[in-house]
């Protein structure tokens, strides 16, 4: 099989996974809000809010393990996970399709898969890390001078950051600065519920969508009850198959979003205040992705202005 060209693979180590499944109407404070209140940053997170159920999943740095385990609704034994990201995907269906096919065929369980503007990140158990990296190396072609998968912060940079923290100015900003809030209306949202093994077929089908020269904008997958995975794919119209619904897409990113708490919580608060329902949400890398019902994208964009600054 021909390898797909990408520019890099990134490995995020020493993380723990937390998640919560709830039925709408349950009077619980969302986990992302509780984590915000505890000033705990989510390295990546995903939310599926379909019909009456809401599934939320996130991974945190290992140093927050004890604190997060005490949060009501979180498991006291947060599993060790790592995050493997590939980039850039360029909206090419072959990239998530190949990744899902690979994981499904190999039977490698993941607790979350979510995309950003450039990356697709998959959260796996730490013990599967080397196997996944090796499978990725065979499926994807990297440039010879690619960045190492795991990035150590240089000592001199660490020293510098102590003196001039890059993020310091932004933690106290009145509104969270972004590089701009983008909106894509009228997209198709495809939904699949299947076992891990069946994800291989779903991935195959997704990769095949690349033939139509259409883009995907967001992909998110998480296991729900009974170990069935819910897979969502937001694409250009007329990609083939029967979409579950049409939807609008909002995405934005900002400096050091990946290192800061409260970003997703602020976005969700803004949309709640604007009475815009959220179907899917994802945050990873420095990006926030939101899928809202068709026709509500403009309302969402307007609502976000109360919490975020767009140049």
């Amino acid at each position, binding site marked *: 099989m021909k390898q797909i060209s990408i520019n890099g693979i990134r490995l995020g180590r020493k993380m723990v996974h937390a998640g919560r499944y709830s039925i709408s109407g349950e009077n619980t404070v969302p986990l992302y809000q509780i984590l915000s209140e505890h000033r705990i940053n989510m390295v990546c997170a995903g939310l599926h809010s379909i019909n009456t159920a809401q599934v939320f999943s996130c991974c945190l740095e290992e140093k927050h393990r004890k604190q997060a385990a005490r949060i009501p609704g979180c498991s006291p034994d947060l599993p060790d996970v790592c995050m493997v990201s590939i980039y850039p995907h360029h909206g090419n269906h072959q990239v998530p399709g190949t990744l899902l096919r690979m994981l499904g065929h190999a039977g490698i369980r993941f607790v979350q898969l979510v995309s950003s503007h450039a990356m697709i990140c998959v959260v796996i158990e730490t013990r599967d890390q080397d196997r996944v990296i090796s499978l990725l190396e065979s499926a994807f072609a990297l440039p010879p001078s690619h960045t190492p998968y795991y990035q150590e912060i240089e000592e001199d940079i660490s020293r510098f950051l102590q003196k001039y923290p890059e993020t310091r100015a932004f933690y106290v900003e009145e509104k969270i600065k972004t590089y701009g809030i983008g909106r894509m209306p009228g997209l198709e949202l495809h939904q699949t519920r299947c076992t891990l093994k069946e994800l291989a077929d779903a991935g195959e089908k997704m990769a095949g969508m690349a033939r139509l020269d259409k883009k995907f904008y967001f992909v998110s997958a998480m296991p729900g009850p009974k170990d069935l995975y819910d897979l969502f794919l937001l694409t250009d119209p007329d990609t083939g198959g029967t979409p579950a619904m049409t939807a609008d897409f909002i995405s934005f990113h900002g400096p050091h979003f990946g290192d800061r708490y409260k970003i997703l919580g602020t976005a969700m608060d803004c949309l709640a205040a604007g009475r815009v329902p959220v179907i899917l949400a994802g945050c990873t890398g420095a990006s926030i992705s939101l899928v809202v019902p068709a026709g509500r994208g403009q309302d969402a964009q307007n609502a976000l202005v109360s919490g975020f600054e767009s*140049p």
Partner: protein
Amino acid sequence: MSEQKLILVVDDDPDLVEAVSMKLEAKKFRVAKAYDGVEAMDRIKEEKPALVILDVMMPRKNGWDVCEEIKNSDALKDIAVVLLTAVADSVKTTSYTHHDGKTTLADDYIPKPIDLDELMEIVTDHCN
């Protein structure tokens, strides 16, 4: 023709690299990408871009070191360098003085979070 010049975008945030690259491509520039300082130097030597948009805080080799390496090389010193930094207050070294008094070996710098339109203006100015 400036529209066909090659711009190298260097940042360890792949989302930002894509956002900047898409904007540059819309302006008809050719774009190369790198995600840390070492990879950036490889691409610079290999592809000799007209301009490098360079993040400061990066793994393996930071943006200042890349900038110094470019500007101290007879073969590379004509490549324009625009630094992206969230710590504009601490921009160091001397050969270029910005209008507000900040100095750097780079040809220009822009504080984060960057305004992509402002960045495009800077790039276009330097490429012309």
